[in-house]
């Protein structure tokens, strides 16, 4: 059975059906629609004002590749300039190959690329070293907890190095849906209260962050990359199988198969959650060590590194979270945490 005509240009044969609406579109029209929607997201949310210097968190994966490409296409209209910032977490056998992909992309697009490495920023702690340190008897290594917090700190540092005014990351709708599912399953009321917007406006001196691809489903991101023939790195992180997010991701795939609108419904739900004031995170202050945004004495990154350096990597994880003056073994404390950003997989 021949494919139907493209519903927009009525000239070419349709190459796909959009997952969201079922419209049949040819490749070119689909890419145009995708770019138009990202443009609308950015403009309507006033995310990237004209003249902004935007640091794109580039990992070499499909999301950040598509993000960088689309923003480059839209850059003249928005009046922004782009810088690529790649983070090297020090995961052997994974990050090196991804960085090679980023370098190729930077060369092709002729965008300046800056690589920031955990080893330089955090006193020699690469993710592999963290994993070795937290590997304990019968316990999970909690790699994503460390990596997520440290990566955001690294991105911020990289963005400041290149003089950026905004940070963008390539989180798509599937990521946001997984996040809200995961936060409910783990009972993370603080993150539920904080999440659901299009990014953070940058309080307390932190750079404003946003996620222009937030309303695009993962399928469409992959299709866009396919039609524009973008070159990206598609293997998953070495530590991904142990992550709790895997459960949420598996559930999301099942939900999407049963009901394709489930992904956007979850994002819609997440935006409208109403949590009790007591469950929300406290008002942020400044970290006493590095001056970054923190709602306790130490920001999460400093607290995690503190624990690692003391040989007690779990110090800042879980109920035993302590500040500078921790002495004995952790007792039952409040379960609140500093406003660490949402834990998210590699982009």
């Amino acid at each position, binding site marked *: 059975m021949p494919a139907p005509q493209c519903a927009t240009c009525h000239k070419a044969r349709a190459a796909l059906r959009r997952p969201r609406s079922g419209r049949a579109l040819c490749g070119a029209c689909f890419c145009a629609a995708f770019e138009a929607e990202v443009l*609308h997201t950015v403009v309507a949310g006033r995310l990237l004002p004209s003249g902004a210097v935007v640091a794109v968190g580039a990992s070499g994966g499909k999301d950040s590749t598509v993000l960088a490409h689309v923003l480059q296409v839209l850059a003249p209209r928005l009046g922004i300039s782009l810088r690529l910032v790649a983070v090297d977490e020090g995961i052997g056998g994974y990050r090196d190959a991804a960085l090679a992909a980023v370098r190729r992309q930077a060369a092709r697009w002729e965008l300046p690329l800056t690589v920031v490495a955990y080893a330089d920023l955090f006193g020699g702690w690469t993710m592999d070293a963290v994993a070795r340190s937290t590997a304990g008897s019968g316990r999970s290594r909690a790699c994503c907890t460390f990596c997520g917090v440290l990566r955001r700190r690294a991105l911020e540092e990289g963005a400041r190095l290149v003089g950026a005014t905004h940070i963008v990351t390539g989180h798509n709708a599937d990521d946001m849906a997984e996040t809200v599912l995961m936060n*409910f399953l783990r009972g993370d009321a603080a993150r539920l209260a904080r999440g659901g917007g299009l990014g953070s406006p940058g309080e307390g001196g932190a750079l404003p962050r946003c996620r222009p691809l937030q309303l695009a489903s993962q399928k469409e991101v992959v299709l866009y990359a396919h039609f524009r023939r973008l070159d990206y790195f598609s293997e998953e992180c070495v530590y991904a199988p142990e992550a709790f997010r895997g459960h949420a991701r598996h559930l999301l795939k099942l939900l999407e198969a049963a009901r394709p609108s489930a992904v956007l419904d979850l994002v819609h*739900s997440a935006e409208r959650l109403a949590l009790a004031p007591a469950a929300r995170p406290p008002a942020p202050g400044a970290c006493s060590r590095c001056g970054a945004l923190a709602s306790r004495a130490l920001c999460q990154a400093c607290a995690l590194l503190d624990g690692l350096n003391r040989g007690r990597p779990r110090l800042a994880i879980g109920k035993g979270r302590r500040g500078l003056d921790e002495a004995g073994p952790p007792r039952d404390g409040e379960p609140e945490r500093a406003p660490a950003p949402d834990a998210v997989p590699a982009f």
Partner: protein
Amino acid sequence: MCQVGEDYAEPASEEPPPRQPGREQKCVKCKEGLPVVVIRAGDAFCRDCFKAFYIHKFRAVLGKNRLIFPGEKVLLAWSGGPSSSSMVWQVLEGLSRESAKRLRFVPGIVCIDEGAACGLSPEARAKALAEMKLILQTVGFPWHVVALEEVFDLPPSVLRCFAQEPVGTEGAYKAAVDSFLQQQHVLGAEGAGDSPSLAQGEEQLSWPCTQDPQNPQSPDRPPTAAQTEALSRLFDSVKTLTAKEELLQALRTHLILHVARTHGYSKVMTGDSCTRLAIKLMTSLALGRGAFLAWDTGFSDERHGDVVVVRPMREHTLKEVAFYNHLFAVPSVFTPALDTKAPEKASIHRLMEAFMLRLQDQFPSTVSTVYRTSEKLVKAPRDGCAAGPPGPRCLLCMCALDIDTAGAALLSQGGPPSPRHRAAVLRLPCEHEGLALPGPPAALHLGRGPAPQPELLPQGLHRAADPGVPG
């Protein structure tokens, strides 16, 4: 690993069992009896302690929330399933206690016969009904058996939201209890025996209310074949099992509330257990009902205005309910539901149930964590959303619409805003996929699919039309 703020070990297979099961283990509460059931994370209870624990939880949930005033008429929604049967049994036992601890409200039972929606044959329905009537007669409360087909006879007024009564304050509750006790005292002194609360639990025939428990208030006529046919057609026109379940829930709720209103009940109790509510919360999340979770899964649900829905079983897990019913012979009736024997991937509800139960196996506190998070939800629009006079309400679930036509990019569904989004949204269903109601002419749709074609049935009940999204 999976709990925020808790260090969880890897799946239990990797660590030695914490205690040797067997002769050495005693009930954790009384330390004497032989344990018969293990609940929560390894707490073993003996039979008596378990019973006390179970009953105490039920009373505590009612007492903590202080919503049921003494002498109030409360309708118990009984489906025949284990949770609602357990709830009915608790109420029965609670009413027969010694006066100090006795429950003080006036119960009735409603049972909805959903056989037509589930596709049961008339013989199967009659058989189930007979079993139910047997149990209802044993229990002895005034009962009403209503067929789902009667939803076609509902007056349009059920879709109108009644003005909300102000929630009683602490002082009001105490005052009510005090005056009730005084009244009791006076009546007891006079030796009058016709206050409803003095009825002995075992003497069912002494119920002084006007309804004789042997004859239900509504005449027991079976629904006509035409009505059954209409109902089957309605449910067949809904293409996905997910939408069918949602439709069934909406219709069932409206019918129960109608029964409550016509017979003067001010509260309805449903038997949703902790497990069911956790699953319901996650399902509602996946269906886009994030704004209404507090109403869907909280203890009290006042969106219908004059009748308040209350969930007293919300702290009992399904395991506790099942064991209680087994140990203490609580009668229940099994009736096939919409999703009985449906494959796991048939609907969002089934998927979520299977997922949660599987995850619960691996991380035993999953259900209680989700439940605890649900307790932190409040019934208010999110900060930053328009806080003003309440807007229009959904016809089906009576919640304030969460489609913000004037919203920023956050709330538009990712596409350039079309004039249709900006049109005045009147009487549009919130998040009920697969159902379309007529609004202003020219398609008004939720923006997540091609515009559905609305169709109308007489009497204001609208026929479902699927917008063609696969699934």
